[in-house]
């Protein structure tokens, strides 16, 4: 029993000592000392630096022979850097002499009264000498305004080339490739056929012939039960067979509206909706893209559809401007 207790007690003492050593407040650097604390510290610093050199070499070897494995490279270089760091910190606290120094600060404006007045005088003198340089000039005001005019003209000239950065906004943000008769195509340019879309499905389609990166080119096509539609009267024939198309670009911040929520249990769930993943603006499908949740304000522009020989074709233009709102956008209220 006693044989077991002795090493246990020693282990406990070592543990306490180690914890104290690690967590105790070490005020070494506060202590003033002129000589290295111990020759052992110098040895440790040297050992750390040698090890850092080896780790650096390991980085080179991993790079050359291991095909540059990212993890091994990372570990090697991190070790090299960390060992140098440890060596420097140890050298700073244990090898180099330590001292605490007290130093005067420069004073910019001193509360003491005499000093304050002296400062003020200096500032005044600086002002006077600036003015003295202009004493011979008689038409100061004229020259001043001439200088301001030069500055304004030159500044305007310097900024003008910035206008070349982009086109005038004009009608640019309202352009759309969708017109009466424009066909809908899939990403692979094949026409979108009405019978390919089941109720509850969701497809991204583009204006035929348009650049797919054009913000207004992409629409989402969804299919719902025709009987559930609640479109306003003027849009009554925009959704043949329950097929609806909306601009895919959210009217809040222009992310792609890429989530389609279609209720499996219509009695208990909110109706089918298109959701933007960026800020969760949610647009009601059945009523024609009205916002039902989230920060968007304008409804999602709807594209009227018709079916021509089985394929989907635009029956008119989008119901509103595509993309985020800006000062030129008319808002229905």
């Amino acid at each position, binding site marked *: 029993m006693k044989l077991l207790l002795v090493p246990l007690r020693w282990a406990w003492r070592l543990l306490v000592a180690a914890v104290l050593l690690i967590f105790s407040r070490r005020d070494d650097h506060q202590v003033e000392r002129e000589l290295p604390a111990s020759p052992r510290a110098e040895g440790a610093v040297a050992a750390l630096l040698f090890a850092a050199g080896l780790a650096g070499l390991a980085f080179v070897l991993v790079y050359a022979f291991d095909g540059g494995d990212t993890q091994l490279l990372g570990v090697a270089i991190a070790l090299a850097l960390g060992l140098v760091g440890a060596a420097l910190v140890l050298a*700073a606290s244990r090898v180099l002499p330590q001292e605490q*120094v007290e130093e005067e600060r420069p004073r910019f404006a001193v509360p003491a009264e005499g000093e304050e007045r002296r400062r003020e005088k200096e500032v005044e003198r600086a002002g006077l000498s600036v003015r003295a340089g202009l004493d011979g000039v008689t038409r100061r005001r004229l020259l001043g305004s001439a200088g301001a005019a030069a500055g304004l003209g030159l500044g305007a000239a310097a900024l003008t080339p910035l206008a070349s950065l982009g086109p005038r906004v004009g009608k640019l943000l309202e352009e759309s490739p969708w017109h009466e008769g424009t066909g809908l195509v899939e990403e692979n340019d094949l026409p979108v056929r009405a019978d390919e879309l089941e109720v509850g499905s969701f497809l991204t389609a583009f204006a035929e012939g348009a650049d797919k990166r054009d913000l207004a080119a992409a629409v989402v096509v969804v299919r719902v039960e025709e009987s559930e539609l609640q479109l306003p009267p003027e849009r009554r024939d925009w959704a043949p067979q329950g097929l609806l198309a909306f601009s895919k670009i959210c009217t809040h*911040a222009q992310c*792609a509206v890429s989530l389609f929520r279609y209720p499996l249990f219509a009695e208990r769930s909110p109706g089918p909706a298109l959701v933007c*993943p960026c800020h969760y603006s949610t647009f009601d499908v059945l009523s024609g893209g009205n916002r039902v949740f989230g920060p968007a304000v304008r409804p999602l522009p709807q594209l009227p559809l018709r079916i021509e020989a089985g394929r989907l074709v635009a029956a008119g233009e989008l119901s509103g401007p595509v993309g985020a*709102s800006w*000062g030129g956008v008319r808002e229905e209220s």
Partner: protein
Amino acid sequence: MIRRAVGFLDQRSGAGSVLGKALRYVFPDHWTFLFGEIALYSFLILVATGIYLTLFFEPSSSQIVYHGSYAPLHGQEVSKAYASALDLSFEVRAGLLIRQVHHWTALVFLAAIVLHLMRIFFTGAYRKPRDLNYYIGLTMLTLAVVEGYAGYSLLDDLLSGMGLAIGNAVALSVPGIGGQLGTLVWGGRFPGSDAFFSRLYIAHVLIFPVLIGALMTLHLALVAIPKHTQFRGRRRSEANVVGTPLWPGYALRSLGLFFCVAAVLFALGGLVQINPIWQWGPYEPYLGTNGAQPDWYLGWLIGALRLMPHFDVVVAGYTLVPNPFWGGVLFPAVVFGFLYSWPTIERRLEHDQAQHNLLDRPRDNPRRTAIGAALFAWVATIFFAGAADRAFVQLGAPYEGQLWGYRAASLLVPIAAYFLTRRVCERLREGEGHPGRGSGARTVVRNPEGGFEELAPEPAPGVADSDRG
């Protein structure tokens, strides 16, 4: 040898005495002073790793068919920017390491700046004569946020494209000039002309880094000229600075910190994956993904965009102020506007025109600490609201309920933080001793009747000087 080198320098530049002074520059010691150093060292690592990345990256949005070594994307049309970032990650030896280190360092850089800002705020280090330097620091923070955004937007992967779409919408939302601003910067309607990537690139690798570097130089000079601030303590006064001189002592410790910061960042870059752009895929304006999150320092803005109720300002049928303006422009403008004007507000409130070289502890000025706590708690609440979609996607917490909760929290949390912090500070101040200000012991005397009574304590020397004025 050293003497000859200094002599050589001195005879040609007269730098000997300057060098001598610089070597004896005194650093007062406190662990919170390290945040600024970590930011500085992160910036150096960003520049070094960034230069390496420019040797391989091609900032072009022109489309090519991908045939690189990441098989799942074979045959896909991608931009040259995205393809070169993939090649950099898969085909350049050590390329992925450096790219990941660069990204991790950007995150740490911003985090260090924000912690540094909090230290400056809560200790009153921004007071005269350092208010000027505080403004420079805030400016660097804004530049660093934009710089980071430009950096991760360059890769043209799905996440960066979604970020740019939002950025463009925020630009469009500026009242009056928004439409033109958006088309100017992007060279047309979003996603913009081919020139946009050249612009983003030169902004990220030259314009913003040079601005930050120049301001950083000025920042350090303005630290050194009035010398460091220090906490109260033995021998320390407004007129002096007590601490370790640069040489010997501080230089090695700080250099050691540099190597330790670099070690952690390289370990992160090597071992912890960040922004695996091959998983996100290339960006097209018609693509999006659920649960998308920006780098952390933009989380507060996405949170504000999410929380804002849906309203625009419509005048004569035209959308004068579109919704993204509130969260994307007004909110950061309010936060930074407050931070910029706080030193002036405080000077007015406390009628304090004095120079301050001694730092307050947060409890020493309960009002300032409470206001700061309210501000940072407000921003943090909105920051967490930005991650509501992650909580929805991964934990199934209903999004709408979360949103209403965060809306309420963004109003209540700052108020609670203000009063709680103020109370805690006052309680801490009531019963304390401090090495620099005596033990906090009370003086008790025995009166002629034989009872005991406590003498009124002297005014605590810890109270900010301004409180007395």
